[in-house]
């Protein structure tokens, strides 16, 4: 037994990789559908959007790269579906260089699905480096940083941008983000211009940003696949489109695998230590 534990402690990490992989692949073939409850911080965003009137404008800042699609995109899609369904208009930027193309794809896809028109129902301003400066500039006037939109159109020529000067003409800022750019929104958009701010972040970032939710700097916070699954259920997305909901199941087993590994590691550690 002791020898086994000693071997276990020195096990090549490639075995660990293998065990993790197997623990994820197997549950794909056995969907259970464990129940998911909506939490307060996620519901807050849903309720705030529901309370908007048709024609209101929200500022939307998707900042995630292909690598974080699985966590953030389900939120972004669910949110855009809800917003467009309410006939709320959207001004968007993509201030993360890796996420510009994705932000554009998302908006176009959801707008097409919900029958929305570019320039009237939504506008995509695009990317500029040094996001914090851009965010501050937009607090004065969107045109300061974006005289033209992502597609090179003169911003003033877009019907929706008429009468839309800066954040104060929007109802809220919602950022679906996987980068530290979220700090800039808190500090420079909410902090300086005092616009209600909600974030959709990865599960990792949720720890960091929970404090801001508690202190009221964020009025809502969605974290990771779990937050996405909750939102999907509230918006009422069903079937294959509800990616987050489906994957939460598999997640359970992956976590179990790691916990078992940690317990085994500790057993081995204590079993071998006492004998020394």
């Amino acid at each position, binding site marked *: 037994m002791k020898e086994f534990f000693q071997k276990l402690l020195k096990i090549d*990490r490639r075995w*660990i*990789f293998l*065990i*993790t*992989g197997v623990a*994820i692949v197997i549950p794909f073939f056995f969907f259970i559908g*464990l*129940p*998911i409850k909506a*939490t307060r911080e996620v519901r807050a965003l849903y309720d705030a959007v529901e309370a908007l009137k048709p024609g209101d404008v929200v500022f939307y800042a998707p900042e995630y*790269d*292909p*690598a*974080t*699609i699985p966590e953030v995109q389900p939120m972004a899609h669910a949110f855009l579906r809800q917003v467009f369904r309410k006939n709320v208009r959207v001004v968007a930027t993509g201030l993360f260089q*890796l996420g510009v*193309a994705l932000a554009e794809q998302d908006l176009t896809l959801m707008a097409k699905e919900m029958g929305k028109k570019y320039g009237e129902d939504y506008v995509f301003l695009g990317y*500029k*480096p*040094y996001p914090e*400066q*851009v965010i*501050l*500039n937009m607090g*004065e006037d969107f045109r*300061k940083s974006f005289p033209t939109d992502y597609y090179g159109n003169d911003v003033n020529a877009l019907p929706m941008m008429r009468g839309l000067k800066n954040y104060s003409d929007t109802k809220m800022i919602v950022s679906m983000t996987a980068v530290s750019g979220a700090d800039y929104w808190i500090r420079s958009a909410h902090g300086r211009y005092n616009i209600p701010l909600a974030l959709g972040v990865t*599960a990792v970032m*949720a*720890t*960091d940003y*929970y*404090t801001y939710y*508690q202190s009221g700097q964020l009025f809502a916070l969605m974290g990771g696949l*779990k937050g996405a699954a909750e939102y999907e259920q509230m918006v009422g997305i069903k079937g294959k489109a509800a990616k987050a909901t489906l994957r*939460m*199941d598999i*997640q*359970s*087993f*992956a*976590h*179990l*695998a*790691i*916990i078992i*590994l*940690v317990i*085994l*590691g*500790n057993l081995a*550690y*204590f079993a071998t230590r006492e004998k020394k």
Partner: protein
Amino acid sequence: MRKEIPLVIMVACGVFMAIQFFVPHELPALIYQNLNKTVQVVGAVALVLGIVSLLSLHFAKINRRQPGYGYSYILIAFFFMMAASGFLPAKVNLGSFLGTGDRVEGSFYLNLYNYVLTPVQATMFALLAFFIASAAFRAFRARSVIATLLLLTAIIVMIGRVPIGPFVLGDWISDLADWIMAVPNAAAKRAVIVGVGLGILSLSLKMVLGIERAWLGGGR
């Protein structure tokens, strides 16, 4: 003079940026916005310098026939391919499977982005799951009070935030995970934020006062 002038520029910009926060008048706001614009231009130019550095490093490797210099050829070739396709006019057709020039849908440039950069990024990010598992196995040992606390909270949060936790153990586990997130976690996080905030404040102050000048090269 090589160090004094930058120092003066830095102090002037620093003091100005700090004060303009309190001035609503349009003049400082105007200067401020343009300073920002300038920062963007300088950043963009710096990238050009970076690329020059990258290329010269690899050209040097090739010249000196350093081990693995063959890979440098590949790197340089792909750089120029990507850059050239981005600058080519959209009209240029590179062939049925390569697409066209410029940065339009279906162009070679975007195809390379979509089919080279994107999948590899996603894969590397996903690989992290394996690294986490191995790191957890290796380092999560209840050696001391501190290590045990780290391990226990990690496990509680892991199990409490997925559906199976409450399903098997009851709702208390997810409540406990949420409580840890909301209370002790938030408390310590605030302490960290305050500390970091003071650290940043003091560092900024030292920069603005010209005490901290490591960035100028070689300390004093």
